[in-house]
């Protein structure tokens, strides 16, 4: 089963603001882009457990900085709200941080049911457009990724 943790900042997200600024001020998306938010997504593959919600809470305790972040956990499913196009961006080359996190969860913290950890960013694009998916793809290709290390997926 896969435990998903969607994590976002409670305090101002300076990175999201900068990306939004760049799209609007520098790349011509002023009319089409009304807002932009960002979430981190941890997808943790685990052997089946009895109480996945409890496990999700334990993972969150390690991975979510409650001083400045909030989160939603879900098991196997990943559902996003209406109103924006979620664009997932991750590394298609080896992800060192994900590997380090997996090692820490398995070894240092004793979560031996963990079999895989995937880390990605979900950009939430609030778009005014007839074909927002196409626009989101364009934005992903022009700014959000460098195709030589990143992949993207419109969710």
């Amino acid at each position, binding site marked *: 089963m896969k435990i998903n943790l969607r994590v976002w900042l409670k305090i101002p997200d300076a990175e999201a603001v900068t990306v939004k600024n*760049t799209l609007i001020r*520098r790349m011509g998306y002023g009319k089409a882009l009304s807002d932009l938010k960002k979430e981190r997504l941890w997808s943790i593959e685990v052997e089946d457990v009895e109480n996945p919600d409890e496990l999700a809470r334990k993972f969150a305790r390690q991975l979510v900085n409650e001083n400045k972040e909030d989160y939603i956990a879900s098991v196997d499913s990943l559902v996003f709200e209406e109103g924006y196009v979620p664009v997932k961006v991750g590394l298609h080359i080896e992800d060192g941080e994900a590997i380090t996190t997996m090692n820490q969860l398995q070894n240092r913290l004793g979560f031996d049911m963990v079999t895989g950890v995937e880390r990605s960013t979900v950009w939430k694009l609030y778009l005014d457009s007839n074909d927002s998916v196409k626009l989101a793809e364009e934005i992903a290709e022009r700014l959000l990724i*460098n195709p*030589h290390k990143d992949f993207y997926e419109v969710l």
Partner: protein
Amino acid sequence: MKIAVIQFPGTNCEYETLVAAKSAGVDGEIFRWNRPAQELCDFDGYVIPGGFSYQDRLRAGAIASKEPVMETLREEAEAGKPIVGICNGFQILVESGLLPGLDGVDAALAQNVMVSKNQIVRRGFYCAWTTLRHDAPPNRCAGTFLIEKGELLPIPLAHAEGNLVTADENLIDRLNEENQVVFRYCDEEGNSTPDYPVNINGSRQNIAGICNPEGNVLGMMPHPERSNFAWQLPAFDPAKKGGLETPGPGRRIFESMKRYIEVKR
């Protein structure tokens, strides 16, 4: 003759970079990124120094690459003026497509990976002195105009994302064929062993710096301005002596740039 050292929000090496340029006999100034772009055209060459422009938000160099000043630099590069990108400067040039300068964005500088005997022993930010081998012919690019092929230069690096990667299988071959691979990491004898600690960051073929086809744009991860004076060398390097003014290996980059400008004018 004067060069501009571009200063983005978050740049942090601009002052010593200007010192290095001046010590090579080039006049220059620090150019704040949001000054009117026309003012940039008065300069004969440009250096994009190291640091964390825009705090590496989104991707190191990505946000800076979209700033208007980079458009102007692209035009100036097309006109043949030299640009040297150091560390974050290299990352910005890669994100702008100015390097390797073939056709759009052809590569990425990803997170460092230290591989020794097939095991990953470390990741992430690393600060150490390394030796660079100049693998291009002399006069090939602006930043190494005076440097012989095979010359070894001790220069320090300090970065978290210097691992040159590309989805284009043929890219590295093309770069080799066109002599666009300017620097490789090697040991003190000049061997570019693929393992850490010689290959400090896992970069393909130990590549530490590349230039564009024309040779006027050079990008390199290590910091020549931190090896500009002999006194900056590590304690056990026998060349670390000679007073405050004795030049260090990094000086050659700035002297090359100066010579390039003189010759091309």
